[in-house]
């Protein structure tokens, strides 16, 4: 249908920009507003948008369920891993000063990895919850 076509074209134009914006918010979070949480939510919103327009099966092919579930866990593990790395290098748990001989760079490195972990978990969880809600309705209609 014509209306469907307009939505699909607009979605195809917008989704790359949304993904790019999510990455921008993630990495630019040190210099402007942003950070891990916002980036994770925007990333999940991009995939949800794709799923709404092109169908849930397409979205599942793009981001399959095992990937989403592992993303949820890996993010938390990355965060904990940064803490353990601090332990292994001689400082306290989650101590960023020891991650690099130059302590300021160590802070940068620690903050970077921590934000990556947070964004991964948040986007994974949001996407998984969306999949679960949508899946429940689909089976109900059978």
């Amino acid at each position, binding site marked *: 249908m014509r209306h469907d076509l307009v939505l699909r074209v607009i979605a195809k134009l917008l989704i790359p920009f949304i993904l790019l914006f999510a990455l921008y918010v993630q990495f630019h979070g040190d210099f402007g*507003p942003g950070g891990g*949480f916002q980036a994770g939510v925007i990333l999940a919103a991009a995939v949800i948008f794709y799923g709404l327009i092109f169908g849930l099966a397409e979205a599942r092919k793009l981001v399959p369920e095992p990937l989403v579930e592992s993303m949820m866990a890996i993010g938390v593990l990355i965060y904990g891993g940064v803490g353990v790395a601090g332990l292994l290098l001689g400082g306290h748990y989650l101590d960023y000063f020891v991650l690099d001989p130059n302590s300021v760079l160590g802070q940068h490195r620690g903050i970077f990895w921590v934000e990556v972990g947070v964004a991964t978990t948040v986007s994974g*969880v949001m996407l998984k*919850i969306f999949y*679960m*809600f949508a899946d429940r309705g689909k089976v109900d209609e059978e």
Partner: protein
Amino acid sequence: MSGTTTAMTWGGHFTYFVTVFLMIAGLFIVIARGNLIKKLVGLGIFQTSVYLLYIAPGKLVGGTAPILSDAFTVYSNPLPHVLILTAIVVGVATLALGLALVVRIREAYGCIEEDEILELDAQPGRPQREPQEQ
């Protein structure tokens, strides 16, 4: 606006009044409406009023957003921002779990009105339409 601790101006406390209004509106929706989804919406309103409660006192007139830059010297307080950022994310996590519970209640009882659910619960020996009993 006076800076002494004894006097108080109504204008100076305006944000607190807005916060309290939103808080009692959210509270009213939670306790007065029976529909479970509407209760969750009311809970969300309550949560946002709490965000305002924390962030409003942190603002300094003439200050700017707490992003360090050589062009500004006065910054608004960043500490409430940090706490509320966590609160927002935890709030949406709670909301997701609440909605999942509502969906399950709907499947078990057939409706999401609090009064009807209490009536259905009061009936003796009512099977909750648990799938494994069918």
